[in-house]
Structure formats: structure tokens, C-alpha cells
């Protein structure tokens, strides 16, 4: 009997089919291609610098959640994947790739917490992303994550949203918004607007009210804004996480070309963490931009600006006890921890912080492509985030504010799995509830 929590057996048809097709020659060729033609000097530096001290282990929520099972330590995940591939020069059997794919796609969310605990600051997530890249080129990617990438490749959004569905949904949400606030329009294709607002595909697909929320916020704040009526409205990028960098680049290219076509000064993006990473870091850099070519403002930063400047005033604070999930890509990655607390503090009467928090907060274990690996891997994902359940329970909150789509869904899963009796909300859901709407604007 295992000393540690045990995953349920998982069948993932895409991984199984991919492995069945592999040959050792193909693996060797692909590994050599990635290591010699795609990776930069930093890969070698990281591999040479690591002293195998294992200090990264205590940083990892999956290691901690699984009773410190050493197999889940970041250093072990690298040892069992990239080190193996490098040492053997890619001469490994297909079944080894299966285990490597599981580690790279399911057991590490590339959240980068471990890099803060590494004495040398090695970007372990980059090493794992390199394994994902190899798996992508070998055609061994979890089924649902690959399907999300396929959606990006076809529709340039992550949920197979057709162009007509996008426009129709935006116009429907505009119809809803003007029943609450007069002239709460969602201007499509307005060239020269100050702001292009971009979202991720779950918003038109399953959470359309979030677009309505933004229509209300923009109207009350008096922002000159627009949204595209063309592809390029989706700022998300799961291709980044499946290792399909060509599709990642195509998605980001269109997103930024759309912003430029509309001649906006800046892009404000909805409450999503990975999308920020894709749109501002990984995507632009693959395309040779040093940074996003148009200023990108995350929703947290935008709400902070609106409240701080008085463009949005709080009429009555939200009373139920709340806590906050710090999204890895916007708090650890971008340092928005203080701003998000300012926003929460302005909106909410009863706030209890998680411990640890800010950049030290644990990942939701849904980002990094994990939740996109789909139902087959959910049980494993839940076992790997017991520490999040413990963190949440200790706050006594009824609501966990999650300014990130992956956090939102992932923490709702944790709440359900560990029966915590709470729920998640986006900032915008609370903000529209408690912001002051001038009488003259009320419909």
C-alpha cells in the first residue's frame, strides 16, 4: 500500500494514441531538434547550475498536498523528464514519453513558485515547458488540452466559438446591459477608441454575464472603448501550454494586429492570468517583440485605476466574508498583489487573506493548462491541491475572489472536492453589485 495519495487510473485517448504511433528514432530526432535548434543557452545554464539540493520541493503545492511524496518535488519532475532526455540524448522508449507527458502536463502547472525557492532562481517552469514542447512535436498531448489548442488553430479562440456566435453574444450582452444602465453600449469595431477590451473564450461561451458586467463598468466610468467583431478578440492561449508555439504565435499575432488595426491606445484584458502571460510575455517573445507592442492592462490594474481615480465609486460594500486567490501570472508574475488588495478592500467589508499570500500564494492547480487536460485528470488535480483546500478553509470566507478564469474554475473544483461550502466570484461580479450608478444613468 502506498504511503501517499494515489491517483485513479487514467485513460487519455490522445496520449495513448500518440504513444502507440511513436518510434524511438522519432523521439530521438525530435528531442535533438528541440535541444539543439530551439532551446537557448539558458537551458544549458539551468541544467548546469542546478545542484540537486531539493529546496524547490517545499515550494510545490503538489508535493505538499501529496504528503511530501518525493516524486512530486520539482527537481524530481525535471529529473524524470528533461534530465533523462538530455542524458540519453533522446534515446528513450515511447512508454517513457507517456510518463514524461503526465509529469509535464498534469503534475506541474508551471506556476513558477519553485523558482522563488531555488537558491539560483532556476526557471523550472521553463524546463517543464521544454518537455511539453517535445511532447507536442511528438503528438503526445492530453486530449482536452490538444482540443483546446486545435480550437485556437482554427478559430483563434480556445472554445470553438464561431465568429457569428461571438458577435451575437456581445450584442445580446449589450441588450442586457442597457436594461440596467442607459447607453451601456459595447461598441464593436470602433477605430481610435482609447481601450480595446479583450476576453477569453469562456466568457462568450459560458460566462456571458461577465461581458455585461464590463459594459456597465465602462459606461459608469466613462471609458471610450471597443471590442473587435473579428477574430482577435480572445486573449487566451492554451497553445502556449500544450507546447504548440506556432499556434501560440499565430493567436498572439492576431490579437496585437487587431489592437493596432483598431488604433487603440491600450488593451484592457479581462480577469485571466494565463492570458496575461501569453499576451505579454510568451506570445510576443516568440514573435520577436520584446514586450507587448500595445500597452496591456490587466483587469486588476484597470479596476484599481478606476477606483483610485474615483471614476468608479463604491456605494455599499459587499458584506459576506471573502478571501482572495492571488493568480500566479498576475501576482507572482506581475506584482499586482497590492493593487488587487486595494480593489478588494474598497469593495468588501470582511476580507480575510490566505496564508501564505501575495507571490507566495499556492497555485490554484488549474492554470498552466492543467484544467484544460479535462475530466480524465481531475481527480489527480484535486489530490495535488489539498493545501489549497486547507488554505481556503482557514480563512472562514464564504466567497473566494478569483480574478482569473483558471483560478475561478479550479478553486470551485477544490471547494466541491473537499466540501468547503464556499463559492468563487470574479471581481467584476462584486464590483457591479456595489458600485455607484448615477441616477441619470439608471435605465
Amino acid at each position, binding site marked *: 500500500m502506498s504511503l501517499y495519495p494515489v491517483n485513479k487510473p487514467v485513460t487519455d*485517448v*490522445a496520449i495513448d*494514441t500518440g504513444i502507440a504511433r511513436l518510434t524511438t528514432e522519432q523521439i530521438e530526432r525530435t528531442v535533438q531538434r528541440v535541444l539543439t*535548434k*530551439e532551446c537557448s543557452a539558458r537551458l544549458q545554464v539551468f541544467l548546469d547550475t542546478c545542484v540537486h539540493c531539493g529546496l524547490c520541493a517545499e515550494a510545490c503545492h503538489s508535493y505538499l498536498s501529496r504528503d511530501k511524496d518525493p516524486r512530486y518535488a520539482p527537481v524530481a519532475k525535471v529529473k524524470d523528464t528533461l534530465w533523462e532526455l538530455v542524458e540519453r540524448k533522446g534515446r528513450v522508449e515511447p512508454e517513457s514519453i507517456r510518463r514524461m507527458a503526465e509529469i509535464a502536463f498534469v503534475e506541474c502547472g508551471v506556476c513558477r513558485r519553485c523558482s522563488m525557492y531555488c537558491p539560483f532562481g532556476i526557471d523550472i517552469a521553463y524546463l517543464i515547458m521544454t518537455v511539453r514542447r517535445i511532447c*507536442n*512535436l511528438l*503528438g503526445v*498531448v492530453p*486530449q*482536452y488540452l*490538444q*482540443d483546446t489548442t*486545435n480550437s485556437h*488553430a*482554427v*478559430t483563434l479562440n480556445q472554445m*470553438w466559438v*464561431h*465568429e*457569428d456566435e461571438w*458577435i*451575437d453574444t456581445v*450584442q445580446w450582452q449589450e441588450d442586457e446591459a442597457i436594461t440596467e444602465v442607459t*447607453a451601456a*453600449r459595447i*461598441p*464593436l*469595431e*470602433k477605430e*481610435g477608441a482609447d481601450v480595446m477590451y479583450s476576453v477569453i473564450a469562456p466568457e462568450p461561451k459560458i460566462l456571458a454575464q461577465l461581458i455585461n458586467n464590463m459594459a456597465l463598468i465602462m459606461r459608469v466610468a466613462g471609458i471610450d472603448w471597443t471590442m473587435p*467583431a*473579428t*477574430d482577435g478578440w480572445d486573449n487566451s492561449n492554451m497553445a502556449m501550454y500544450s507546447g*504548440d508555439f*506556432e499556434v501560440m*504565435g*499565430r493567436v498572439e*499575432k492576431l490579437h496585437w494586429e487587431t489592437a*493596432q488595426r483598431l*488604433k487603440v*491606445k491600450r488593451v484592457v484584458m479581462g480577469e485571466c492570468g494565463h492570458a496575461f502571460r501569453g499576451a505579454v510575455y510568451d506570445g510576443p*517573445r516568440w*514573435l*520577436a*517583440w*520584446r*514586450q507587448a*507592442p*500595445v*500597452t496591456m492592462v490587466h483587469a486588476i490594474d484597470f479596476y484599481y485605476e478606476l477606483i483610485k481615480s474615483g471614476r468608479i465609486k463604491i456605494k455599499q460594500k459587499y458584506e459576506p466574508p471573502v478571501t482572495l486567490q492571488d493568480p500566479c501570472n498576475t501576482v507572482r508574475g506581475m506584482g499586482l498583489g497590492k493593487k488587487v488588495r486595494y480593489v478588494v478592500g474598497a469593495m468588501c467589508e470582511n476580507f480575510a487573506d490566505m496564508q501564505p499570500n501575495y507571490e507566495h500564494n499556492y497555485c490554484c492547480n488549474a492554470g498552466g493548462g492543467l484544467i484544460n487536460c*479535462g475530466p480524465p485528470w481531475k481527480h489527480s488535480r484535486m489530490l495535488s491541491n489539498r493545501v489549497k483546500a486547507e488554505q481556503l478553509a482557514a480563512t472562514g470566507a464564504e466567497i473566494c475572489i478569483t480574478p482569473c478564469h483558471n483560478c475561478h474554475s479550479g478553486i470551485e473544483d477544490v471547494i466541491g472536492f473537499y466540501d468547503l461550502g464556499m463559492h468563487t466570484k470574479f471581481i467584476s461580479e462584486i464590483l457591479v453589485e456595489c458600485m455607484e450608478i448615477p441616477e441619470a444613468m439608471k435605465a
Partner: protein
Amino acid sequence: MSRNGNWDWTPGRKPLADVAGLRQQYRELLEMLPSPDGERFAALVVGEDGRMTAVVNGESWPETYERLWYLRFSAQGKLAGLAMNDYAWTVAVDGRTWDETFEFVWDPRFTADGLGIAALIKQDNRYAVALNGQPWPQLYDMVRDYCVSGDGERAAATVQVEPRKEADVEGFFAGTWSLAEQGERWDEKFINIWEPIYDATGRHIAAQVRTDIADYTIAVDGKVWDRLFGCVWRPCFRPDGGAVIAPVRTDGNWTLAADGEVIWPGRYAQLWQQRFSADGQRLAAVVATDFGRWTVAVDDRPWRRTFGEMVTAPTFVGDGKHIAAAVKDHDRWSIAVDGEAWDNDFDMVWEPVTQPGGSHVAVKAERGGRYLLVIDGRQVGPDYEMLWPHCFAPDGQSVLLRTVQDGKYVREVVPLAQLLG
């Protein structure tokens, strides 16, 4: 004669619409735009009953709609918009709707002569292109990127030709996409196909295709190039016909290929938006000479000056000797001509407009929320509440301005000599 040869090029100002009055007259004023010749000014308005219509030089269309949006003028001055009543969508042109209605209509485009209109349509949950209201005989599960031939007679689009089952990775990589022209599809199927284009004759079509996880190339009339690349971007045809030119990624760097063969020895961190000169003798493209350094390469020779954030598609200046592009550096926009950036910078610039047969470059720019006309780097005239992209007279000696000043829409023709002082 060019299309604007018969416009009124007499110097002078014509106030044609009272924008401030429109704002008072209607519950909402949602969009406004002038015709290319500046003689008509259209506004998309919402009445007190919540219904929408268009108002042109103060006259409203006879019909109102539950929704009307995306008003656009053709080069010939036709005004079209997407209109919906009772959940049925159609295209309204100068106040009259197509006879045909659809579940949805979007992305309308005027044909090159400005007389016809193409659009994507959805009917019974199937998709097609419609030309002047007539959808293709064959509809598809999904239709995405489309293009219209120069004569406006035909349209081609990327189409999904196999049913997509949920999360069917195997099926997807077997190829579910192709291209259809007038509804008739190519035999070939691809994993992906993007952004088809017609050549000048309308007889040939090229598109980017993906044939394996990381294998990309160009398909021309259904036949793929012999060589595969790590990635490709939007191709173009030589203006004189023949070769198809596309940016291609090889060994991690970008260059240009023609009909599958690399034609530029230079290798770049990025390359896209290649453009030919009118005579087809010169070829320019936006390139990144290094990570984060952007410029224009002309016949594979990059400008010496590079920019940090963005360079837009190169424009060959009217005399054919110079090339201009909008450039962004340190979060400020300007224009570079032959690699030399103007001294002035702006919050935003629009695409450079060049003097026919001459060397002047004129640009709409924005600074501090006001709009300016800038010629050769110098602001000419006042700044405006609104300014639409300007146009040179065919002889290059006058400029047509379409502006909103003090709440009035004004059409103004100004001699170039006067602007340049």
C-alpha cells in the same frame, strides 16, 4: 481616370451635417462616418423607441431596425450596414435591405468596384458566403476566412469539410479543412488553412496551410508547395501574376520564399507584411533584424534605423522612389520614410497616404485627444474634434479633408501649397 477624378476638387469648405444637433435629436448617436468623397455624412442613431436607423446628411433611412450596425461606405459612395428585425439578419444598402434574410450576416465587404457586397452568412446552422444576397449553393459546417475576386464575381473561403466530433484529436489531425470557391471545395484537406487571397486576375487562389503538427506551407489552387516550413504567414501574388511570395520560418528564423524556394538570403527574427511596388520591381517587408528591433527591409536590405515596438506595413510613396511606414518606439508613434523617422511623434498615427506621382507623405495623427493632419512630419492646419483619413486629388495638388469642427461635419478641399505654406 482614378475613381476620385470626378469628385469636386474645388478648394473650399462645405459644412454638411450638424453633429451636435444629431446628438440632441436622437436618443443615441452610435457611429458616424463620411463617404469617401466627403459629400455625404452618415450617422447611426437610436430613436426614442429604441430602434436604430441611419441618417445621411440629415435624412433618415425609411426603415428602422431592432439592430443596425457596421455602417460602411463603398468607394462609389454606397452606404451599407448589417440590419436585423424579428431575429432575421440582412444587409441594408442605402436604406433598402436585401430580399434575402439569414440567421446571421457578418463581415460584409464591398467588391473592388464598390458596386457589389459580399458577406458571411449563417442559415439553418450552416455557413456560406453570399454575394449580393445570393449565398453559395453549398453551405458548410463552418466557413471562416474569405476573399473576393477583383472583378467581384467570385468568392473563396476556408471551409470545414468534415464533421467535427467533440475533442476528436485524431480526426482533426487527419484534416477537416479545405477551401471552397463559389461553394465548390478543393479536393485537398488540411489540418488548417488560413487567409486565402486571389491574384489580380481572379483565377488563382493562395492560402497558408498546415499539413502536420509543425509543418506549414502555401497551397496555390489546391496544390501545396514542395517544401514545408516551420511556419508561414500571409502570402501575396506578384502584381504581374505568377509567383506567390510568403514569409517562411526555417531553422528558427524568417525569410521570404517564392513558390516554395527561399528568395531572400537574409534571415530575420521576424518577417511579415511584404508589399510590392506598383511595378512589381521592388519588394519590401516588415522585419525584426534582432529580438525586439523592428524595421523595413527593401529587397532584403533592412533600413539601418530600427524601432522597439512596432512597424506597420510598408507603403510605396507615389513617385515609387520612397517607402514609408508607421513606427512605434518608446510608446510613441511616428512615420519613417526610407528609414528616417520624422522628428515629431504622436499618440497614434494612421496609415501613411502618399501624393500621387509625388513624394509627400500625409498622415492622420492623434495627440492629446485631438486629430491632426501631418505632412512630411509637420502639422498642417488646425487640430480637429474628428478627422477621417484624407485623400489627395489625382493630380496630387489638393487634399480632401473630412472633419468635425465645432460640432459640424465639414468637407474641405485645401490646395497642397496652402497646407505646406
